[in-house]
């Protein structure tokens, strides 16, 4: 059972990661803020609580793997990797710049800690299945964690991989669906209704759970119960708020991609710093 103090620290880290994201947006003047902020609590929990990884040895053989199938949320991953010490935070200031190690979608050859070149949607889960199969074949205990977006679920290739994971009983595979309910054109359920997401995964043979994906206690409780069922891959449908933590952008589809004014950046910075102080004061 995780302590209240540990949860408080994870919440603090998540806010620091949000601050890292704002630093990147300042550099590039734009970025996929909506999905980045909806998923960042999950990534924080994975990197700072669950995953067996070594920032000094990113390619460690027995590491757990993380794949961001929704590669456009990469600012969340960069923020978390930087906070964890995989690379110097000065590189956050290169986001969007020529030859940056931090491109707008992740590149495994440029940055330690990136396991796959995602960005085209619907690719991550197949790659993750291959990783999970290979690791299991070698008798490794490593797990493979994937964050997908609800908006990418209509890609048919996802469901090929969903079938593979169930067919091969990949209980070393864990998927978070960052279900923020919005995509560029509006509400995901209006654009292409893929609900009930949990039932679809379950129908293929996955074990599933619904959580509030911006609630650290719920994320940690879910992670502590993996695999939900032995012999089954796990799908956690994380109900989140798009642009969570950006008061004027929360729950708005137009904040999928954000080109902020200087005023907006200032407000965002201030809000995050206030939350960081609040959490620190609770020590």
């Amino acid at each position, binding site marked *: 059972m995780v302590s209240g103090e540990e949860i408080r620290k994870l919440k603090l880290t998540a806010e620091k990661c949000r601050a890292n994201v704002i630093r990147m947006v300042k550099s590039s003047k734009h970025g996929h803020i909506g999905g980045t902020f909806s998923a960042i609590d999950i990534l924080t929990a994975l990197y700072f609580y669950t995953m067996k990884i070594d920032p000094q040895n990113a390619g460690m053989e027995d590491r757990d793997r993380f794949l961001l199938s929704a590669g456009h949320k990469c600012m969340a991953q960069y923020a978390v990797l930087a906070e964890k010490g995989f690379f110097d935070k000065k590189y956050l200031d290169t986001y969007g710049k020529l030859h940056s190690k931090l491109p707008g979608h992740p590149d*495994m050859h440029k940055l330690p800690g990136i396991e796959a070149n995602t960005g085209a949607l619907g690719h991550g889960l197949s*790659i*993750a299945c*291959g990783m999970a199969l290979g690791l299991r*074949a070698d008798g490794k205990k490593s797990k493979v964690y994937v964050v997908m977006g609800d908006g990418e679920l209509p890609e048919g290739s996802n469901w090929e*991989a969903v079938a*593979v994971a169930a067919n*091969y009983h990949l209980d070393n595979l864990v998927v978070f669906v960052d279900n923020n309910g919005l995509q560029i054109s509006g509400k995901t359920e209006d654009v292409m209704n893929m609900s009930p997401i949990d039932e679809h995964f379950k129908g293929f043979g996955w074990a599933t759970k619904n959580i509030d994906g911006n609630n650290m206690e719920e994320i940690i409780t879910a992670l502590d119960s993996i695999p939900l069922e032995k012999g089954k891959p796990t799908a956690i449908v994380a109900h989140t708020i798009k642009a969570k933590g950006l008061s004027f952008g929360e729950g708005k589809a137009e904040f999928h991609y954000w080109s902020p004014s200087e005023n907006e950046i200032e407000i965002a910075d201030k809000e995050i710093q206030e939350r960081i102080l609040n959490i620190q004061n609770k020590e």
Partner: protein
Amino acid sequence: MLAEYFDPRKEFGKAVTELAKENDKIVVLSADSGKSSGFGDFMHLFPDRYYEFGIMEQGVVGVASGLATTGKIPVFCAIAPFVTSRPFEMFRNDLGYMQQNVKIVGRNSGFTYSDLGATHHSLEDFAIIRMIPGVVVLAPQDPGEIKNAVKAMIEHKGPVYMRIGNPKIPVLFEEQDFEIGKGKILQDGTDVTLISTGSTTAAALEAGKALEKQGVSVQVIGMPTVCPLDAELVINAAKKTGKIVTVEEHYMDGGLGTLVSEVCSQQYPVPVKRLGVPKVYATTGSYDELLEYYGLNAKGITKSVLDFVQKNKRSV
């Protein structure tokens, strides 16, 4: 003496299986395609290294990428269009961009599935796969070369696309080690160079002999690596014979002929005639009928080379 003929798929499957006895990293992926790809023995010898996925080519390419990240050497063989044009983005991103050590083999390539129609033909696979940076494209030309190309493909670190046919093919050469990126002069000549790859090389050699009898001295080059092309061999041929004919079971655009033309136009411009299929959905019939119809058998190649030589007599 009549040449011996072998099934290219069986030769391929046998070669992978033999290598797998020594190399436990090799795994085989099947999209309901393993048995027809010559993996009957592999699946029984190595059941733990044989993964069946059902009809799922896009997913399988992604899974292969993931397996390769764990050190495996995945080999995935199915009908050529289904492992090239269908999962193209997975090939490009998950194998090419990620530079994963995966071997994709398109069988029944070209129009060897002649009567099954254009959905089952692959006349653009060279063109599309060679545009993915860092991917090697191979088209071995006879049974022994398939075996040795498989060995080179497995030893090569990085993504490879190999194309093989379906009908039995004759033994053309003495077996020798396969070097990726190298072509070979199969017949010497001075008037014109005929460059072939994969399934058309047997007919190209036959055409070469027929042309000699008609007084045309033909240099025949076998080019089992389409990408990276052996540019040095092409330039030397251009210098030596002053004109080049290419032949391939592929659209005349985008494949070997285009690659040869690119090299010549940049480095030693000479007339290049590209033999292949015009950019249409190829008609159906027996394999031999299609080769005849598109002028890709020995008779058709001979006629095209003769016409080309006459139109491009070297000015002295």
